[in-house]
């Protein structure tokens, strides 16, 4: 099926597909992750932006109706979870959801299609040295960037809702409440608990999404190994199809989970203990 698998075996094939296209820039820069995610993000804002610009309150076009369904779905989820001014929360949730859906969907593009394109356009030698990973969410940089941004937004919400003093006080007095001198003893414990609680949020968000997408990508690569031999070709096709269909669920589910957890965290950050 692929030139890499034919020459170097499954191991090399997978290693090749798991190598980023790194640009020597500072500590290194994943051009593939960054470019693919940027193009997809622009695709999203272009699509929704155009529909939003032409949006009418009257009878909507099918395109507008489709966009509105997504927006209303996200807004409905936010409304159910977060009771407050949604003007900044819903756009955040919408961006997270759509961008992650778009990036996750890259998993469904045939693994060797980019390689084949490079091979066809620039020849085998260039293809052998050009690494290109298509799924930005299977790069921890992306998921962690998202979750850390969310983390800062959470802190912003907590500060906006409680003020600097209120937030600081909560860090020291919750979850263990006490009066008198005992409160001073419990303060470091509370702070420690809160720091863990706060740090767990971005890490779990990033790891969950990354793990799912990386794992999904890896399974696709293993299945692609089946396609290399004649005997395993038909089972390979079946397995590939089955996994792809199942993966559609994961794509949407993981995007949804990331979005809804963000909203839940924001709601939690605004509420007092």
């Amino acid at each position: 099926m692929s030139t890499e698998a034919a020459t170097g075996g499954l191991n090399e094939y997978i290693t090749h597909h798991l190598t980023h296209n790194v640009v020597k820039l500072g500590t290194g820069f994943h051009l593939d992750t960054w470019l693919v995610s940027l193009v997809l993000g622009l695709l999203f804002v272009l699509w929704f932006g155009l529909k939003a610009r032409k949006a009418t309150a009257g009878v909507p076009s099918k395109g507008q109706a489709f966009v509105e369904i997504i927006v209303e779905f996200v807004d409905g989820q936010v409304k159910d979870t977060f009771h407050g001014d949604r003007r900044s929360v819903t756009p955040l949730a919408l961006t997270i959801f759509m961008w992650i859906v778009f990036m996750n969907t890259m998993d469904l593009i045939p693994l060797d299609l980019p390689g084949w394109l490079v091979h066809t356009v620039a020849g085998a030698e260039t293809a052998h040295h050009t690494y290109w990973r298509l799924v930005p969410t299977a790069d921890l940089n992306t998921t962690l960037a998202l979750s850390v941004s969310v983390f800062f937004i959470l802190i912003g919400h907590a500060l906006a809702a409680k003020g600097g003093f209120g937030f600081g006080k909560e860090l020291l007095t919750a979850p263990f409440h006490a009066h008198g001198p005992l409160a001073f003893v419990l303060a470091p414990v509370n702070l420690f608990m809160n720091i863990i609680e706060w740090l767990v949020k971005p890490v779990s968000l990033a790891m969950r999404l990354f793990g799912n997408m990386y794992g999904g990508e890896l399974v696709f690569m293993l299945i692609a190994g089946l396609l290399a031999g004649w005997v395993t070709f038909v089972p390979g096709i079946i397995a590939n199809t089955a996994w792809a269909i199942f993966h559609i669920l994961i794509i949407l589910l993981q995007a949804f989970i990331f979005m809804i957890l963000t909203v839940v965290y924001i709601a939690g950050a605004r509420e007092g203990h």
Partner: protein
Amino acid sequence: MNINLTFFGQMISFGILVWFTMKFIWPPLNAAIESRQKTIADGLAAAERARQELKDADSRVADEIRKAREEATQIVERANQQYNQIVDKAKVDAIAEGARQKAVAQAEIDSLSHQAREVLRQQVAALAVSGAEKILKREIDQARHRDLLDALAKEI
């Protein structure tokens, strides 16, 4: 898995995307959706109102029809009564008129018969006298029986 500069690149991308969505996508779409929701809600309310009004109008119409039917029945009843009264009155009048005319005719008949009888009596008396005269003229001398004849004439 190495975290490197990509991380910051992605953060910046994400920030720009969120900003764009917040600025240019969410407000117009939300405005359109909310305004349409309002239009639909107004339309539904108007439809509900119209349905209520139609129901009221229907009940009013039914009321009017019922009243009109009652009135018509009353009118027919009254007309029937009037008709009966007129017929009765005509009957009574006719009977009275007939009786009156009969009385007039009877009176006329009575008076005529009375007159006839009077005339007849006079004529019979004259005839009797003249008959007697003829008989007596032949057998009795007028001079001789004058006193008798005078007494007879007086008697008639």
